[in-house]
């Protein structure tokens, strides 16, 4: 029997949602400060309006729904899924006010793409967008990469009860440290340390390529945020191709791979347990899947001879592949080149890479390496059960920080999430085909949206139908939250309609 949600449930959800909206309002102070520094008054006004709206709605919710009760699991999950929608709606306000987005829906598309670290864009005339708005596009990627709730937990909210429930709801089922607030802060520590190192490295290379110092470090910071948070936005419409620098590409590949690693692994490496990188199931699986998918892509590209030299194949083929596998979405080719210059075999390699993703508890989306590793190990265990005598006791273990014996419930959970992703990729592809796009192109774009990648073969344009825009927004949202929070929200609405008092 489904029970109708009580008013108390709605009040608790509203109260915590209000807190997160206030936190989001405060994050808009960063672009305001940058806008003032660059003397961009009009863009600053856009953000002042955005901040005010976020604070007004947030404070009203806090006032109306004030409660001292703790969140339940269901309420925590619903707060998370609604927070991401609220973030999209609020984050899109200053973007839309800039005039670079054709409609508010387009601005919402880019805001969700940013928060979900996808990287698909509908912005127009990006090359003339203000520093303030450009920074905001990358900052929302940084916030989304860490997790909107993580931001609230780390900086803006004190004495947050039920924090772990919201942390889990945001597809972070691993705690780096026993305390979830400390975990959130460690995630920020890693990100800030790499932000400084990455910005310096990229900024210096950009300067060597002739970009003026202030601009070079601005580009460095933006590209770092998009690379480490596996987002894929860039300050220029040509994306990473704009820089025409092999060294710049190498550095971004390193940052993308670092962003695809588990924060728990970062922690263990940073406290001296360096052998973990050789033993961990995720790093081993990532290494193998990158090479397998790249073999497919490289073989396809070599077959049609799109690139005349090994180095060009590496720069073009491997870059798009690693960008897809880590869920970043940086491109060093134009969208239509995927269709015009790549064959189907090479596209299949990139689609598989996008569908797999990086490590759990990282900033990537998609199925993820731990699940792939567990499924392979479970398959191995089942095969052994068939081959070995019936009396033999078959155990299978994997190394993830510590030795873990595979249990049926782990394999079941990994398979269910994988299945959910595959269904999501497939549904998006079918909807794409409904609008006349070929199967492989539709699957490419759909996988890119649902796995939060951002590579595009040209379907994502300002002129694409509203239904397709909404489909990709939903895919980005569900893919980033890994379904549980989304399913809980759907269940909550069903209970509100059909439930008994």
């Amino acid at each position: 029997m489904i029970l109708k949600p009580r008013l108390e449930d709605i009040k608790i959800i509203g109260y915590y949602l209000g807190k997160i909206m206030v936190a989001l309002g405060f994050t808009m102070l960063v672009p305001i400060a940058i806008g003032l520094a660059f003397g961009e008054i009009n863009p600053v006004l856009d953000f002042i309006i955005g901040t005010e709206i976020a604070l007004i709605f947030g404070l009203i919710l806090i006032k109306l729904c004030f409660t001292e009760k703790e969140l339940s699991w269901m309420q925590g999950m619903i707060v998370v899924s609604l927070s991401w929608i609220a973030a999209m709606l609020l984050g899109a306000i200053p973007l839309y006010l800039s005039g670079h987005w054709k409609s508010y829906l387009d601005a919402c598309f880019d805001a969700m793409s940013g928060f979900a670290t996808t990287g698909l864009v509908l912005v127009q005339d990006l090359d003339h967008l203000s520093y303030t708005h450009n920074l905001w596009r990358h900052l929302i990627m940084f916030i989304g990469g860490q997790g909107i709730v993580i931001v609230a937990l780390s900086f803006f909210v004190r004495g947050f009860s039920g924090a772990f429930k919201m942390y889990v709801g945001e597809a972070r089922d691993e705690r780096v440290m026993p305390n979830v607030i400390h975990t959130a802060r460690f995630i920020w520590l890693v990100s800030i340390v790499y932000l400084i190192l990455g910005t310096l490295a990229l900024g210096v290379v950009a300067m060597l390529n002739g970009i003026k110092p202030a601009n070079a470090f601005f580009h460095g910071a933006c590209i770092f945020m998009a690379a480490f948070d596996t987002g894929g936005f860039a300050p220029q419409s040509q994306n990473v191709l704009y820089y025409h620098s092999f060294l710049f590409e190498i550095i971004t590949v390193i940052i993308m791979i670092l962003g695809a690693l588990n924060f728990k692994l970062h922690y263990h490496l940073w406290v001296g347990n360096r052998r973990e990188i050789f033993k961990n199931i995720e790093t081993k699986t990532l290494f193998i899947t990158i090479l397998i998918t790249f073999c497919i892509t490289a073989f396809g590209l070599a077959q049609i001879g799109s690139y005349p030299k090994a180095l060009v194949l590496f720069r073009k083929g491997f870059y798009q592949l690693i960008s897809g596998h880590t869920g970043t979405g940086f491109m060093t080719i134009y969208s239509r080149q995927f269709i015009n210059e790549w064959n189907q075999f090479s596209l299949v390699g990139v689609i598989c890479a996008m569908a797999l993703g990086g490590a759990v508890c990282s900033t990537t989306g998609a199925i993820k390496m731990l699940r792939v590793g567990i499924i392979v190990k479970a398959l191995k265990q089942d095969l052994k059960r068939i081959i070995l005598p019936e009396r033999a006791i078959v155990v299978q273990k994997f190394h993830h920080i510590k030795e873990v014996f595979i249990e049926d419930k782990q394999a079941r959970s990994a398979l269910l999430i994988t299945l959910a992703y595959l269904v999501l990729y497939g549904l998006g592809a079918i909807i794409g085909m409904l609008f006349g796009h070929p199967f492989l192109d539709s699957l490419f774009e759909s996988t890119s949206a649902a796995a939060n990648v951002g590579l595009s073969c040209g379907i994502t344009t300002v002129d694409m139908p509203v239904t397709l825009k909404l489909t990709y927004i939903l895919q980005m949202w569900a893919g980033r939250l890994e379904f549980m929070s989304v399913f809980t929200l759907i269940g909550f609405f069903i209970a509100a309609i059909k439930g008994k008092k």
Partner: protein
Amino acid sequence: MRVKSFVHVTLGITTEVLYALCIMLAAFLICAALYLNK
């Protein structure tokens, strides 16, 4: 365990970067192998 040693952090970052470079090297070898066969 706490992150308190600058040396550990530096070595940890180096290990991660080396891991990324290993992936790139392996990928480049695949490219080279494909073109050597041509």
